[in-house]
């Protein structure tokens, strides 16, 4: 039986001791990257240990929010009520050295080009979560 009210298929965030910093910072408009407190290696997505030196000690740095488009897709089907379509989603390289996935706003799909400069901003997503969103440089709210 189908649900009469449209409901997002996006699962609730799974917030743990390892990744809470990211979502807390996003709500305040900051993009943070986890850093090994022993060897300095950055990692994303977050995890409990440094894959390079296996240390459990970590802190975070605030990223510049500069980004370069590494790859992208434009999703058409099936649509989710929490997003608008066609939906461009990008995988970006951050100058800090990690990557990030986020949806792209304010750029027509046919204007997307690998290697183009973008900026990481934030916006409301499913379940009211404030999460990263990609914009043209200077276009983030």
């Amino acid at each position, binding site marked *: 039986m189908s649900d009469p009210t449209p409901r997002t*298929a996006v699962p609730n965030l799974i917030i743990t001791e390892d990744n809470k910093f990211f979502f807390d910072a996003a709500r305040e408009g900051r993009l943070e990257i986890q850093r090994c407190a022993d060897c300095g290696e950055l990692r994303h997505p977050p995890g409990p240990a440094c894959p390079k030196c296996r240390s459990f000690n970590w802190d975070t740095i605030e990223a510049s929010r500069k980004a370069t488009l590494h*790859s992208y897709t434009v999703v*058409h089907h099936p649509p989710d009520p929490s997003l608008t379509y066609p939906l461009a989603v990008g995988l970006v390289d951050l100058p800090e050295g990690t990557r990030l996935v986020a949806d792209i706003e304010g750029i027509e799909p046919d204007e997307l080009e690998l290697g183009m400069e973008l900026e990481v901003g934030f916006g409301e997503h499913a379940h009211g979560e404030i999460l990263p969103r990609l914009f043209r440089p200077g276009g983030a709210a």
Partner: protein
Amino acid sequence: MSGISGKAAIAGIGATEFSKNSGRSEWQLACESVLAALEDAQIGVEEVDGMALFTMENNPEIAVARALGIPELKFFSRIPHGGGGACAPVQQAALAVSAGIADVVVVYRAFNERSGHRFGAGPPPFAYAYNTDQEYRNWINPYGLLTPAAQEAFLARTYMHRYGATSADFGAVSVLSRKNAANNPKAWFYERPITIEDHQNSRMIADPLRLLDCCQESDGGVALVIVSAERARDLPHPPAIISAAAQGIGPQQISMSSYYRDDIDKMPEVELTANQMWAQSGLTQNDMDAAILYDAFTPMVLLQLEEYGFCGRGEAKDFIADGNLEVDGRLPINTHGGQLGEGYIHGVNGIAEGVRLIRGTSVNQPTKTLNNVLVTGGSPVPHSAIILSADR
């Protein structure tokens, strides 16, 4: 040859019809396919003493054993990662049989994936569990990467950009599969081939993936019976000897979204599995006479051709264009029509086709002698593969 190579064989295959609405329970589909495979092997139901399944299988061994009156199971194991692990239950079965833990191990996969929960519709029910297994969804699902097609699209685009492959190059896989399916009365797309224009005109799902780059969604079940090679030789069908069976997880792998590696269009877990194929069997890719390459989405066929070393990096489009994958080509693939054409039974229908190729009973049986057939699981998730060989 080493380890389990040559010690076990697939002696029976069975399936239900492949449909869009089976009209019966998944449990019944599992039971029907198991009985069909045992009948094919000419092994009594009461002789089954092991089962190896997907973790995603909704019909547990305990339920099928009860329904079919299988008195005792001494071995039961489960493999995660859906179609990526498709060949791994066969590895489990071969391990159990060759170690003497069990004598007759059944592998099955049965679901109403079209009339029930559709994987293409969004995250599966288990995606909503609050655990480390599903934590990776934090980084893709909220942004709209909700389906496997959307999650694979980054790799496909990077691959196209790097090597000049086009949507039509992906479409060639779809056209070939539908040509093979058109000859297969069991295929959903029996007598319904497509042209490259059909592919190019099919609607975009997750650019660059079009509808006809995506496999079907199907209801149905497939089962396999694994016994020792010695026992298999006394059974009615020529045994499909398991010459290699392996799994692979690569560095910094994330389910469907290993986006943080240097080259996102490489699949080291597939390479890891490929290397085990050759090491276990003492064979090379040049010894593979045919292959069943997991084809939930067309780009993964190109990437697998390269990871298994059938051609160089970026050369798959030319390898395909040169006709190598045709039924009478160098490496016929997906002769049943694949999951694009026959049905989507999470790769297990492809294993059954591998057995038919070894027996010489495929509807699209190549004219050449087939000694070795590679069968692969899905990607870009943890991977698995087997080599099936004729008993010569």
